[in-house]
């Protein structure tokens, strides 16, 4: 039992996970966009989820404002909400689709995949 404790897990209380990147699978077919999107039909977009609590870790690359807001939230949660867990770095994906003139178009759509999450 002592060993379990050593990992610092608190029993009986569900700890919220910290801000991090989570899976988000987008299926264009389910969106009904596959009549004009040739490829890809689905892709992994990811999303950010979790709490931004004090102290903020450096990999979350908080802005100074997020540090102040998190500090105030830790002092009095009722006065200030915590900072938000959001995408801090995004990357594009290529899409091949048919335009309104039935032409085949290749386009690089910016900001479609979450690379990193942070607190802002």
């Amino acid at each position, binding site marked *: 039992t002592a060993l379990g404790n050593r990992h610092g897990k608190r029993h009986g209380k569900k700890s919220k996970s910290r801000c991090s990147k989570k899976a988000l699978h987008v299926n264009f077919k389910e969106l009904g966009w596959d009549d004009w999107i040739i490829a890809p039909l689905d892709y992994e977009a990811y999303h950010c989820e979790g709490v931004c609590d004090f102290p903020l870790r450096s990999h979350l690359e908080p802005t100074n404002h997020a540090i102040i807001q998190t500090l105030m939230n830790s002092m009095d949660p009722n006065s200030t909400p915590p900072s938000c867990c959001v995408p801090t770095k995004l990357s594009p994906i*290529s899409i091949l689709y048919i335009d309104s003139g039935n032409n085949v178009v290749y386009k690089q759509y910016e900001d479609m995949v979450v690379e990193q999450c942070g607190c802002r």
Partner: protein
Amino acid sequence: FQSAAIISPSAPRRVRGARISHRDGQRSSKILKDILASTHPVVGHHKDDLKDAIVPHEYMLSIYRTYSAAEKLGLNASFFRSSKSANTITSFVDRGTGLVSHSPLRRQKYLFDVSTLSDKEELVGAELTIFRRAPGNLQTSSQTTGLYDIQLYPCSSDSLLDSRSLDPLDSTKAGWEVLDAWDMFKVQQGNQLCFQLRVTLRKSDTEVDLRQLGLDRSGRSQQEKAILVAYTRSKKRENLFNEMKEKIKSRRTAGEKEEGAAAKAAGATEEDGVSLKGAKGEGPRRRRR
């Protein structure tokens, strides 16, 4: 401010619309509903036929494969010189239909409808890609000595757009000829671009029968048709939601326009070997009542 949401299709549609509680009332939910309704598999299932009717050119498929694989390695498409730092590459298939004649084919016209090119995007390059088949009667072409000159002109003027040399030995094998067509967009305004191709013997400047070099357009599959590829770069970052809205709107107007054009095309006359009827699969469209 507009909200964007990815809503699971399993929720019933009516609830889906209600779920978006937004400050400006039902406007954005109507827009979202409009987008989803018009593209929903149940309503728009005839669109699948449309998609199947369009055969992506091998060139576009190879572009997509190359750049999306590079993306996975963290390389941007604009990294490749061939992309001309464009983030959008649009292909237009040749709509010309040649007249069958037995006299030597000295000139050939190519017609492209570029009306869907957005004027909000900066054109950074354009190429006309023509598939040259292996000519049937190898004997005649291999007798020729000296280089061929493949020359590209606008239909409406004789200012040379681009030219490429072709070795007679190479001309016995099939291949793609890529000609720079960027200047065409500066010379000619409007949505219909017409190019004219001719091939001369470099020494004597005599025009060659395009059939000898496998450049005539008769009997070509969709994959062998000439395509005009336009490279554009969007100046400002567009909101995906707005872009989808525009796409849906323009598809709807294009659909209505095509119905009108179909009626008109029934009476259109062939002029100068170039027809207004369009490519296979783009004929009159039946709208399912």
